[in-house]
């Protein structure tokens, strides 16, 4: 249950109980706002060890980007910027209220707020929102992003987005009866459409200013901040958008005068600068580097500067039934039992920075989830060697067998995981050979390509998955639906080929009743675990470093990191 009721980000009421929130302690920003403040001014300094996929709302698919984009773009709705469970609820942003569904939930209507303007002062209309959604459909120009709208909107046949299908009437999908109203028509009923409406694709884009693939270089702001200088690969600055009006925006405080974002910064250094107060936020939000752990966890003062949330993400290993002898369920079960979960956990960063040992697919935080453990791995979680041997015998491989384990070469944690599996499975005679593949091709060419995986005997595939938003369908569909597996490669689901699971998924998506729908997620979870198609590793946690000098810091559950919307400078 959500603990903090006093801190409702939306209303702007805060600052009162400042004392409790300002005291730095471990997990101080988990369920309440840490260091609340309404002080305006200052520059917030963000750093990113990597680089953005894209700043364009149509093209970006990184979690931190969806978190950050709200500073310069307003989608129709958004997650409520408050700590705790309440943060997973949706609130209107550009729209006046949440979506109004038709009875059959196939038509969704939103009314825009009055007086919202782009950075150049022109008023934002429903056409701009429609245009933003339509252009995001062009997967040639914006290959990276999600396809929720492509898949669900009732588009004219062969529609390829506003660039290629110029002048095509798209009213069958989106109607804009007036400048303030926008109506979405779906092919099938979908009760969770508000989740779609919070996607960056509903951020308005003025057609006249659209430069397609180059729009990312200067996104026209609809939020409180706009781009000043943007050097791709190095970083950018945001300054106040003079045409943003606080009156139109109940969610944002817009405290700092600007943002300074550096990209491609040395990850080790980000940690050091966060701790020293030279930097406010590690934008990637994935937590402390291993080198920092020792330092932070052994020093109570530094530990007080950290938060340790569980994230809706599962690190797991696919057990590929296409590869002999893993086609035999007992061999798969032997793997489930033999794996040393503690080693798995350590490989990912240990108890705090890695995660908690997972016993099934669904991470805590997904509605409907149930806790169960089909393959207890011994008293210390180091694996149950005896049970594993039993199953090996049942499988007809009493002395074990040989197979390969693949992982992404660029990811040290996955490498450590593969090594850990190699060690722990060796105890029961299962000999693993490590097969690293380049990250870029991991799913497209190797592990995600069934033919390749089979002929190269990739018995185990180190893998991971996080939901786009906290919801069973969003979490499970891509990883357990056997129909997403493509012979040409590229699928995330590598091992789960169970018709019953597919049936359950279909059943759930037709079920409009939430109360009936949610138990199905747990049922699927059980089915997959019974089939031993997946070896769950850990439910991810991260050890977030709270930058010194930042105000209004709290952990945002839907984003899995600190909320970037309302931070300020002390």
């Amino acid at each position, binding site marked *: 249950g959500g603990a903090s009721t006093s801190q409702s980000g939306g209303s702007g009421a805060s600052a009162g109980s400042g004392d409790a929130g300002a005291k730095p302690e471990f997990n101080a920003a988990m369920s309440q706002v840490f260091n609340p403040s309404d002080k305006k001014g200052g520059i917030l300094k963000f*750093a990113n*060890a990597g680089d953005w996929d*894209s700043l364009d709302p149509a093209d970006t*698919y990184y979690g931190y980007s969806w978190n950050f984009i709200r500073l310069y773009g307003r989608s129709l709705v958004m997650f409520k910027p408050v700590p705790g469970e309440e943060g997973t609820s949706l609130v209107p942003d550009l729209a006046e209220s949440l979506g109004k569904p038709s009875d059959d939930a196939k038509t969704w209507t939103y009314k825009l707020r009055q007086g919202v303007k782009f950075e150049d002062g022109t008023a934002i209309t429903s056409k701009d929102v429609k245009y933003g959604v339509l*252009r995001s459909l*062009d*997967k*040639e*120009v914006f*290959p*990276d*992003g*999600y*396809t929720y709208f*492509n*898949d669900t909107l009732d588009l004219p046949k062969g529609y390829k987005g506003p*660039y290629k299908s110029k002048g095509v009437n798209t009213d069958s999908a989106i109607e804009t009866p007036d400048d303030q109203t926008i109506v979405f028509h779906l092919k099938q009923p979908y009760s969770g459409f508000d989740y779609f409406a919070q996607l960056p694709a509903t951020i308005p884009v003025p057609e006249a200013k*659209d*430069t*397609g*693939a*180059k*729009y990312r270089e200067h996104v026209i702001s609809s939020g409180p901040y706009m781009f000043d200088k943007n*050097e*791709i*690969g*190095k970083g950018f600055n945001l300054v106040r958008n003079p045409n943003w009006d606080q009156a139109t925006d109940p969610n944002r405080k817009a405290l700092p005068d600007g943002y300074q974002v*550096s*990209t*491609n*910064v*040395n990850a*080790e*250094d980000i940690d*050091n600068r966060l*701790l*020293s107060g030279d930097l406010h936020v590690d934008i990637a939000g994935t937590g402390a580097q291993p080198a920092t752990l020792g330092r932070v966890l052994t020093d109570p003062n530094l530990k007080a500067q950290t938060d340790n949330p569980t994230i809706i993400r599962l690190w797991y290993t696919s057990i590929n039934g296409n590869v002999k002898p893993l086609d035999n369920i007992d061999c798969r079960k032997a793997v489930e039992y033999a794996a040393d979960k503690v080693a798995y956990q350590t490989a990912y960063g240990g108890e705090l920075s890695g995660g908690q040992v997972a016993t099934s697919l669904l991470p805590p935080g997904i509605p409907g989830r149930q806790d169960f453990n089909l393959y207890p791995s011994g008293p210390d979680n180091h694996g149950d060697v005896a049970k594993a041997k039993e199953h090996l015998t049942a499988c007809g491989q009493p002395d074990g067998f040989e197979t390969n384990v693949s992982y992404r070469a*660029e990811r040290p944690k996955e490498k450590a995981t593969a090594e850990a599996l190699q060690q722990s499975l060796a105890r029961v005679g299962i000999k693993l050979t490590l097969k690293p593949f*380049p*990250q*870029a*091709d991991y*799913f*497209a*060419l190797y592990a995600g*390509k069934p033919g*390749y995986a089979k002929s190269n005997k990739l018995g185990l595939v180190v893998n991971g998955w996080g939901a786009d938003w906290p919801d069973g369908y969003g979490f499970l569909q*891509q990883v357990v639906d056997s129909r997403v597996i*493509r012979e*040409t*490669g*590229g699928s*995330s689901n590598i091992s789960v080929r169970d018709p019953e699971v597919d049936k359950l998924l279909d059943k759930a998506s037709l079920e409009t009743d939430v109360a009936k729908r949610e138990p199905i997620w747990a049922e699927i979870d059980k089915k997959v675990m019974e089939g031993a198609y997946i070896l769950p590793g850990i439910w991810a946690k991260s050890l977030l470093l709270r930058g010194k000098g930042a105000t209004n810091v709290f952990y945002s559950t839907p984003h899995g990191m600190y909320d970037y919307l309302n931070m300020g400078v002390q």
Partner: protein
Amino acid sequence: MVTYIIRRLIWGVVMLAIVSMITFAIFFLVPRLAGATSESLASRYVGRTATAEQVTLAAEKLGFNDPLIVQYGRFAKGIVAGADYDYGPGVERCPAPCLGYSFLTRLPVWPDLLNRIPVTMSLAAGAAIIWLLSGVGTGVISALRRGSFFDRAAMSVALAGVSLPIFFTGIVSLVLFSYGRPLAITAPGGSYTPINENPAMWAYSLILPWITLAFLYAAGYARLTRSGMLETMNEDYIRTARAKGLPERVVVVKHGLRGALTPIVTIFGLDVGLLMGGAVLTESTFSLPGLGKYSIDAIVNQDLPKVMGVVLVTAFFVVLANLLVDLLYAVVDPRVRLS
């Protein structure tokens, strides 16, 4: 002279063409030999949830269905004649030399490279000045005081210098002088500031990479200069200079160093040329957004146009450095005739 330069330039262009062909072939053929189809290749460059239809589209758009020759031809044509680029709302002309568009971001590669070159150039130039001065200086003094304590000490350090992997020295220096130090003598990388923005910050952000890189090279140059000086100081013309009654300082600097410097200048030119293509290890150790880091990123992402671009730029600098060195040689050494 002019014909010489023209001839060299023609050869340089031929060389770039060969380099680009080989690069293209490696990146094109190896995955295909490993069994990739144009679709599976395209699926690298679309999101993970892309549908089969989108993958086919991407393969078509990226031209993966064409044969090798056609794809290379398109690339080469872009360099020579520029290319048209569909950025969505319209078509834009990417003027020659158009190094193509990133498979991943669909943005032209050339501006990216232009962005990165100053970084690499700053790194290379600064380090080069440091190592040239310190390396040659040390080498000269060592040669003159052969066998002295200074000589032994300097040569031991130099030997250590050439024996240490640069990524190791780089990390150690970062840990010692930067990470979390209150008096960090440098920004630890990633915080590169262009010189025209803030020269002080520029130098501050580069000082550690400079020194680390320069240390490696200075060590080599000190050894090289020392042996070169020992050799030239044995030349007959040094004896002549002494016989004229020149003070030792003049003999050493004007006659000895001048003679020993020629091969050093040659190597220097080539080293800087190669560095201009990106000091891969240094840039990745210090997270400098230069060409070297760019090339690594491009390779990791299998972004062929980016790889081609950075390889060509590197080869271009090497070819250019070669030419300059040869011209310089003719200037430095009057005996050399360019033909």
